[in-house]
């Protein structure tokens, strides 16, 4: 008791600060308020992240699709449309870093290390895919083949990683999205080098949007 009092004096706290009278209704209100604040501050707004990526895919792939629509023979996306897609991908990445990073500041433990591995795997996979695309072009692959590969390979890789993600997120909706991306990537490739951009962008984007809606409903306190 004396030790507590000494500690309180040393810290500048008063007895009221430390063990203020607490009636039952106020205790219940404090619990509710603390819970809502923690949910608001410590949980990343993943619905917003998924919604942003849904828009990035639909608009980015849509712009590419419009740029190749009607090409005979197929020559590939215009530099301007590729620049637009690159900028949109950058917006998605920065938005993700800001939203997730802000919420997870100060949180430590195994799950944080797992999330880092997840993002590292995604980044490494995308770098490898774009490097391979360059190698295919260098080896003389046709514009059509490069077009289909460029549209579906990043989606296939992302889907595969998301499917394994329950180890990180323990979340069925992310796993379902991963499976959806794999199916969309594999099947939309049959739409050819022009159609693949429209089909894959629309279906994958809708998948991200659907997960955003599901998670928004579930994350409500």
């Amino acid at each position: 008791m004396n030790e507590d009092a000494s500690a309180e004096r040393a810290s500048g706290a008063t007895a009221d600060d430390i063990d203020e009278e607490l009636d039952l209704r106020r205790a219940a209100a404090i619990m509710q308020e603390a819970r809502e604040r923690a949910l608001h501050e410590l949980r990343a707004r993943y619905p917003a992240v998924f919604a942003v990526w849904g828009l990035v895919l639909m608009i980015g792939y849509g712009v590419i699709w419009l740029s190749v629509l009607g090409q005979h023979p197929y020559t590939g996306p215009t530099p301007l449309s590729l620049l637009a897609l690159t900028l949109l991908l950058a917006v998605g990445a920065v938005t993700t870093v800001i939203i997730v990073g802000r919420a997870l500041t100060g949180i430590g433990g195994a799950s944080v290390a797992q999330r880092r591995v997840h993002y590292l795997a995604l980044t490494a996979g995308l770098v490898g895919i774009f490097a391979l695309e360059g190698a295919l072009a260098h080896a003389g692959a046709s514009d059509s083949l490069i077009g289909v590969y460029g549209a579906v390979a990043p989606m296939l890789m992302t889907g595969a990683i998301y499917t394994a993600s329950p180890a990180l997120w323990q979340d069925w909706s992310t796993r379902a999205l991963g499976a959806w991306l794999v199916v969309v990537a594999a099947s939309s490739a049959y739409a050819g080098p022009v159609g693949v951009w429209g089909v894959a962008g629309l279906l994958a984007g809708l998948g991200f949007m659907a997960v955003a809606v599901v998670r928004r409903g579930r994350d409500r306190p």
Partner: protein
Amino acid sequence: MSDDELDSVIHAPARLRIMVTLSMLAGGEDLSFTRLQDLIGLTPGNLITHLRKLEDAGYVTTVRSGRGVTARTGVSLTQPGRAALERYATVLRQLLDGTDPADGASINP
């Protein structure tokens, strides 16, 4: 049933906030001292005092890591702490309802 049945270690505004905040972390996660202080809105000294009481009761654990600019103190709820908070919420709910319902645990009062 009376107020005396509420765990006196938890039944204080600041400690209740600390316990509920830490209970929102997933298993295996901890929260840095500075982020916890920011969320609870206490001075460092006050927070240390409350954490000491909770630590003495075995409800929270603090782990220090790193040195210098990388130094970090992680605070997390222990299993007994989580169970104590569940019990506290159950008793509080029963007292507020004026009933004595069957056992059932949730941190929502």
